[in-house]
């Protein structure tokens, strides 16, 4: 494979391209509403109308507005058909010939789409995720070529540092710094791992990226591997995402056949292989040390850091761990330059962030916005506010590790620091909107139950503390608790947060603490008077 080969593939693809491309969403959301049947009927309708030479029906990845699926979009006319049924296929085809379609349509220029800025999702809903040629046509693997042939690993890392990209998995650690540490760690064997164990309930960005554009992740991993000096990569993906797994398998196979993975990539000495590892239902495996235990085929229990994975990780070798969205950003950064990327976003949070918008909101689906976009823009303009005349009460970010941001703080810009100040975190990008019918103590208990069930059991504060905190929240909800119990709960939150071994335990109290901070009255309304008698030395 050479640069020339890439260009030829692109030319061939463009030459064969038909006048109209009818994009049909084949991501998990729309597929659950029978988009497979829609696609088949569209293909049949094209043949029935004798338009095989005019129209191509293409299965693509996520088109973002999941609540209105199945989605079909015509390119270049851009009309966006929503809630498409297989029966309506002939009508859609007819409309492309000037007829009036008998299908609901949505405005592709509405705020939901217009306010987005796509870097990670640029190919999502455009390329066919099951054909590597489709990715190459969108200039895929050019960045890898450029890096391998024009940059030293050191320069590659410098570009990453200059871009200002920070880890999209939650904590926001500077990616370039991480790469640099792994590169500098002594050792001949190094690994690159892509964390695709998207465990936060309410988050589905990574699933969409893997289903819609798997090659961007592979290309990102390959560039990272070159930069840090690794020759083996693993993608650790949840078993709950069968479609993402199968698309990744196809992508890896195609990349190997084309020589974009394997040995001597682009006729350089660089060789790199990627294997899939399928998770088996353990949220804690999203924690990096637990994830590595799981890749090694063991119980996914975390271990104390230091040593950090960058020094001693998988099989005790230096290991680079980044999440799906981080890797998906990589090819675009090398294609367009670090300055381009650093020009997007805020002072300390660069680029864009993908969010999965869900909950009590009109438009649910995927959005990608520049860092620093106010929450209000996302929730009210793009999301369209609460459905059925409800009032938005809070936005939950960061899943079980995050917090609830109350409506009065909707003008907060979305970046790592601002969300942190409100006691929440960016997290991986789940954004659940809650309206005034949501009881916040109930939400806190829901997340605590989650953490209790997902605790690995290794360290005492997390294993037993989450049980006690859950019981206290339950007691409060059942109107059996007193102010003394609430004090106990707060004390435990502080202790579990500070003493737990890994991120799961350390952040398990976050939803409780943030709801206590902004919605304390909801807790206090449920408390009973204390009957224990005088409290002489409250402990």
């Amino acid at each position, binding site marked *: 494979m050479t640069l020339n080969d890439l260009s030829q593939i692109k030319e061939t693809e463009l030459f064969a391209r038909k006048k109209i491309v009818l994009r049909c969403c084949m991501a998990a959301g729309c597929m659950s509403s029978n988009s497979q049947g829609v696609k088949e009927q569209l293909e049949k309708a094209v043949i029935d109308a004798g338009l095989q030479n005019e129209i191509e029906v293409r299965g693509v990845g996520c088109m973002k507005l999941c*609540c209105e699926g199945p989605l079909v979009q015509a390119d270049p006319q851009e009309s966006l058909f929503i809630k498409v049924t297989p029966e309506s296929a002939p009508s859609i085809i007819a409309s492309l010939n000037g007829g009036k379609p008998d299908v609901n349509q949505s405005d592709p220029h509405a705020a939901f789409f217009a306010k987005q800025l796509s870097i990670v999702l640029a190919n999502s809903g455009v390329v066919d995720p099951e054909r590597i040629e489709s990715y190459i046509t969108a200039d895929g693997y050019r960045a890898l070529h450029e890096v391998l042939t024009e940059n030293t690993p050191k320069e590659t890392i410098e570009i990453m540092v200059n871009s200002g990209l920070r880890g999209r998995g939650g904590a926001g650690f500077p990616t370039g710094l991480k790469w640099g540490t792994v590169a500098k760690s002594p050792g001949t064997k190094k690994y690159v791992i892509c964390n695709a164990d998207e465990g936060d309930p309410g988050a*589905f960005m990574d699933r969409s990226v893997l289903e819609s554009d798997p090659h961007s992740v592979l290309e990102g991993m390959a560039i990272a591997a070159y930069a840090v000096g690794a020759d083996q990569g693993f993608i650790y993906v949840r078993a709950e995402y069968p479609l993402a797994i199968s698309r990744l398998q196809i992508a890896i196979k195609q990349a190997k056949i084309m020589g974009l993975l394997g040995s001597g990539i682009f006729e350089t000495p660089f060789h790199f292989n990627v294997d899939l590892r399928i998770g*088996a*239902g353990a949220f804690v495996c999203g924690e990096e040390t637990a994830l590595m235990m799981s890749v090694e085929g063991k119980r996914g229990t975390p271990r104390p850091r230091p040593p950090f994975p960058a020094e001693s990780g998988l099989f005790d070798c230096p290991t680079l761990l980044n999440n799906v969205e981080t890797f998906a950003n990589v090819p675009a950064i090398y294609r367009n330059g670090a300055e381009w990327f650093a020009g997007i976003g805020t002072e300390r949070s660069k680029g864009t962030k993908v969010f999965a918008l869900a909950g009590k909101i009109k438009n649910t689906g995927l959005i990608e916005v520049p860092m620093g976009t106010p929450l209000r823009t996302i929730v009210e303009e793009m999301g369209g506010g609460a459905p059925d005349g409800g009032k938005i009460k809070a936005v939950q970010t960061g899943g079980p590790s995050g917090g609830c941001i109350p409506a009065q703080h909707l003008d907060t810009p979305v970046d790592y620091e601002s969300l942190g100040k409100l006691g929440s975190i960016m997290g991986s990008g789940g954004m*659940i909107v809650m309206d005034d019918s949501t009881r916040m103590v109930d939400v806190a208990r829901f997340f605590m139950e989650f953490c209790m069930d997902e605790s690995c059991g290794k360290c005492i504060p997390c294993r037993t503390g989450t049980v006690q905190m859950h019981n206290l929240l339950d007691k409060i909800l059942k109107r059996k608790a007193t102010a003394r119990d609430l004090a106990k709960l707060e004390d435990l939150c502080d202790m579990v947060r500070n003493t737990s071994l890994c991120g799961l335990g350390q952040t398990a109290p976050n939803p409780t603490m943030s709801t206590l901070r902004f919605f304390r009255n909801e807790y206090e309304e449920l408390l009973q008077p204390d009957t224990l008698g005088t409290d002489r030395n409250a402990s």
Partner: protein
Amino acid sequence: MTAISNIEEKPVVKPVASGHASGDKRFKILEVHMKKHQFKHDALIEVLHKAQELFGYLEDDLLLFISSKLKLPPSRVYGVATFYHFFTLKPKGEHTCVVCMGTACYVKGADKLIEAVQDKLKIKAGETTADNKVSLLTARCIGACGIAPAVVYDGAVTPRQTPESTLEQINKWGQA
């Protein structure tokens, strides 16, 4: 205190050198899969996935077979198999109803779906009906938040469920 010995007695079946004493072909397929992974210890989870795919669940005999082939102590295999929720050591019902309990589904009433099924079938989440017809399970977010609340009926993700639509599906299975 009085000793409560309520541990089940389990028969120990010794695996034989190649294949399995029972002659069940699936053991052979599993062994080929292990060979593909060069019987490496770190392939344990992949092997358990395959075993569950072949047998439906992981019984002791099967775990023992895996442990002897991968040369891992049985306690390690059992420890891993019980750590991950995806693996099940008991047979599942003929049909499975997996209610997603992710946050988005929860705030849109997934708990009501579970309650409805629990009331109807008189089983709790994680259990199977006495006639082995239906297993009720919960999932920690299947990533279909845009179409919440979602339920997976026998592997098919179904969007925007209500207690009524869920019970309708359960009733269909009851008649089959």
